[in-house]
């Protein structure tokens, strides 16, 4: 078990190293990266928006439900929602959703290419298949995921605002005051640092799982599942590590 883990970890690092050897032209990668940005980023906006809006709304409702003391002012609700959203919910919970959607798609795509010999075809042509197929995905993920996190953060707070105001939990002024009160700009930086790390982990782990698929359709399914579970575990571990190091 431990040996298998160490073997896989070593293989993963060798795989990541292979992305930067024997590369094709910049023009080739640029076009591929733009295509991947659309597939990975733009196509995830709707899902991320829905999840983020409801996440903010529910967080506001539950915070209000728990803060019932007359000594606690209403604006604390939005303050709590802000910190939870920016520090944790937008980068981390959306990362879990992102791993489910994008990670499984990357692993499935590469796994299918492997079992149908499309990756072999690239290798026979003299193209470094790992670099050609994976590098654009990783770069696109690193470019697009922070944008998704920013969108998620804004929509989550908007969802919280709408629920807070429409259900008369608090006044619009209190909500805005709570959002601005004691705001530490570093929390935005922290969220973006986390989002870059998570984007790299999800895209690279999913690519690794898909790229080394062996067998048939069943194994492609297994690789997709493993890509999601391994990515989520890596994200949570990195989340803890970054919080410990940077906060």
């Amino acid at each position, binding site marked *: 078990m431990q040996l298998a883990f160490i073997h896989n970890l070593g293989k993963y690092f060798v795989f990541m190293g292979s992305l930067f*050897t*024997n590369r*094709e032209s910049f023009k*080739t990668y640029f076009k591929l990266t733009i295509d991947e940005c659309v597939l990975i980023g733009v196509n995830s906006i709707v899902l991320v928006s829905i999840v983020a809006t409801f996440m903010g709304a529910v967080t506001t409702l539950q915070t209000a439900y728990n803060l019932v003391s007359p000594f606690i002012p209403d604006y604390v609700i939005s303050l709590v929602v802000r910190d939870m959203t920016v520090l944790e919910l937008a980068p981390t919970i959306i990362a879990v959703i992102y791993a489910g959607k994008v990670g499984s798609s990357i692993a499935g795509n590469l796994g*299918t*290419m492997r079992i*149908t*010999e*499309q990756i*072999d*075809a690239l*290798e*026979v*042509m*003299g*193209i470094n298949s790992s670099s*050609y197929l994976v590098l654009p995905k990783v770069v696109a993920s690193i470019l697009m995921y922070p944008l998704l996190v920013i969108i998620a953060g804004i929509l989550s707070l908007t969802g919280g605002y709408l629920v807070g105001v429409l259900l008369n939990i608090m006044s619009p002024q209190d909500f805005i005051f709570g959002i601005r009160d004691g705001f530490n700009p570093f929390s935005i930086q922290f969220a973006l640092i986390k989002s870059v790390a998570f984007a790299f982990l999800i895209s690279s782990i999913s690519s690794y799982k898909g790229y080394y698929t062996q067998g048939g359709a069943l194994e492609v399914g297994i690789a997709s599942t493993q890509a999601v579970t391994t990515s989520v575990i890596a994200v949570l571990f990195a989340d803890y590590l970054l919080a410990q190091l940077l906060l």
Partner: protein
Amino acid sequence: MIEIENIQKSFDDKSILKGISGVFEKGKTNLIIGASGTGKSVLLKNIVGLVKPDVGVVKYSNRDFTNANRDLKTEIRREIGMLFQGGALFDSKTVEQNVMFPLDVLTTAPVDEKLDRANFCLKRVGLENTNNKMPSELSGGMKKRVGIARAIVNNSQYLFCDEPNSGLDPQTSILIDNLIKEITLEYNITTVVVTHDMNSVMEIGEKIMFLFEGHKLWEGNNSDIAKTDIKELNDFVFANRMMRNLRDS
């Protein structure tokens, strides 16, 4: 010309190739035949570099491919075209994009020139009006023909075909076989075909290597294959009734 010297390969202590040597000649359709599980596809993968042999050397026109540095390996690989068993067309690209792909990635030619070349190759394999079709819209035979067009688009010097007839009806099989033979002669390239189809053997087998349990048991051409006294080869050649009837008549 491709030379292979003492190719040996094992997977998990199971020996698949046990010292195979031979020469695949230029301008000829060279066949590697044998029953399933004898190591034909593994040998082909060793030759094209998808698998590295444990022992032995593969030489392309006297250039050592097995021990070559990365640059030479890439240079040789760019002279190789390969038709895979299932076609291995890129699902997300149209027929035209699939055929143009090697030119797009490996050359800096203008788009018009690349398009002309792709159209020429598609016409050569008889698929003029399929440019905008997706691979999922093609029949098995059409996929193989697009695979051949993609393999020759970059003026390949070496053409490899892994089971080009698998899953095809007899008529389409003959069409693919003839296409491979014609292209080999027309461009004077070295073609290596892995097959277990006796129709192909009789149709295009100018030089044949018979493998049995990881060994090369026999080498010759399609006019000699039925005249040997090697039991394993005769069992393979005369496995079906039609061939036995032909022999007995």
